[in-house]
């Protein structure tokens, strides 16, 4: 595992796995070689493990990457190693190790699509791993953080059966094949049009910005923290953490559409833009009506386009019919 521009949140998420337990994974299931957060060794001794794996086991190891690829200043915003008196950048190390790996797995939203690190205005020009390894297929395990089951499930699939079936953004279909919305237990509220008006209510959270309809993950059935609960289960909307473009396209988290960034560095809400455009046209039309009436243009146009014929048809009454009939109960009277 190489960590680049990351908060190490995916490691923290991963060590919450249950079952297999974390210690079981390290001692019995996988040969976990190099990991800043989990290694007992440090410095050169630890780094040497990575270099040994790279030179002695080419095309046999799996490279896990956590964190985004930082491009600014040729990658020098992000140093991950010190080798022969030189600082090694995240991009360089990922490319070097990645080209000889059997599989490359990007873990978390930063490594897959850039994530929060690439958020507006993205001063570090961050991207996902796929952008620096265009010649390889990167398996994306997105999420902020990625669910421990998604990470371990993907690794076990790679070890036991090879590459899992991937969906449109390179994520394993078994975890990211359906939207949150399609499996959400509050879906019947949505279908009936019953919406929560505030976070914390028990109905569908669509109105308060739920991104479930656009987010592909299996949280509703897998849930978090040993399957105890998940966001919608505690009445807060899904924030769409597994999708490309998170968090910019998904924020504000409590609003349906993302804000539009302006050149000055501020942002403006989509709905305000829409209302502004509609307000402007209404004002323009009303102003134009007033001006046209004042100038007499409307009156002139209407007269011009509805000219009468040369002579008008006039109808005269030609004949009047009177129908007489016998009263039915005339005799009685």
């Amino acid at each position, binding site marked *: 595992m190489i960590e680049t521009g990351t908060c190490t949140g995916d490691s923290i998420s991963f060590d919450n796995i249950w079952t297999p337990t974390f210690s079981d994974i390290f001692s019995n299931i996988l040969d976990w070689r190099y990991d800043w957060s989990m290694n007992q060794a440090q410095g050169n001794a630890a780094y040497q493990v990575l270099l040994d794996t790279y030179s002695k086991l080419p095309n046999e190891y799996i490279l896990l990457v956590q964190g985004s690829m930082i491009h600014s200043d040729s990658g020098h915003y992000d140093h991950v190693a010190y080798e022969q008196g030189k600082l090694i950048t995240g991009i360089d190390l990922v490319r070097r190790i990645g080209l000889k790996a059997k599989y490359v797995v990007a873990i978390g939203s930063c490594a897959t699509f850039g994530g929060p690190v690439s958020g507006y205005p993205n001063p570090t020009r961050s991207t996902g791993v796929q952008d620096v390894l265009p010649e390889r297929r990167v398996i994306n395990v997105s999420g902020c953080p990625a669910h421990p089951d998604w990470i371990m499930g993907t690794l076990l699939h790679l070890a036991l059966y090879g590459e899992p079936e991937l*969906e449109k953004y390179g994520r394993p279909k078994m975890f990211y094949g359906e939207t949150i919305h399609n499996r959400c237990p509050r879906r019947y509220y949505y279908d009936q049009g019953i919406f929560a008006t505030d976070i914390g209510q028990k109905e569908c959270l669509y109105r308060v910005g739920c991104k479930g309809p*656009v987010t592909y993950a299996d949280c509703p059935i897998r849930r978090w923290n040993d399957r105890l609960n998940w966001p919608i289960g505690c009445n807060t909307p899904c924030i769409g953490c597994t999708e490309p473009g998170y968090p910019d396209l998904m924020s504000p988290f409590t609003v349906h559409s993302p804000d539009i960034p302006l050149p000055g560095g501020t942002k403006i809400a989509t709905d305000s833009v*829409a209302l502004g455009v509609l307000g402007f*046209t209404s004002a323009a039309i009303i102003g134009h009506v007033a001006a046209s009436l004042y100038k007499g243009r409307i009156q002139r146009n*209407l007269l011009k*386009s*509805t000219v009468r014929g*040369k002579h008008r048809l006039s109808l005269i009454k030609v004949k009047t019919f009177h129908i007489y009939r016998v009263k039915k109960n005339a005799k009685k009277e």
Partner: protein
Amino acid sequence: MKKKKELRKTIFKELQRGNVEGEIILFQPLWVRIFHWGFALSLTGILLSGLELHKPAKFFAVSYGDMFKIHVISSWFALGFVALRCTDAILRRDQSLIPKLRDIKLFPKLLAYYLFLRSAPPPNRKYNIGQRLVYSSWLLLFLIASLLGLSSYWQGEHLIWLWRLVGGFQRLRWIKFMITIYFLATIPLHIYLSMTENLSHLQAMVSGYERKPPPEKS
């Protein structure tokens, strides 16, 4: 009954007897009229249900499943009407909707007319350049929105290239919403101008026929 029929006949005869100055011409063929009103109706359905899908109105407790069906069914109808109009345009070699370069040169003059800087609009063919620009942009945006709609309808199973092109579902929705706003901003303009510029064009969209003004007057 018979009397009424005769009455109608005499009125028609009167009309045909050159009662009207100028000549009566076919201005809007039948297919154009069917397209216009059918499309107007189904597009209204699409736009209103799309807005409701975007942000459920507080005062309106409606089944979302139904709203969704209205949206998709109106879209299929609208696509059908557009297909009719396109087929008709190809068969008649009708280019009245396509903006031409020489028309675009007239655009400033037209704008000047709308801004009261000129008293009369520049000469134009069936539709003026402003109308051509708006109509063709509608056609284009409608097709784009429909394509985006179809790809969200298929949930990323088909049209995957489109998802990748626009950068995900959320942005796809956003584009559709913006297209909706464009429609909502330009449709009132269209209605306003068609009711105040030339009423006989408006009635021609119903009856199909229009009085061609005598040449010496125009």
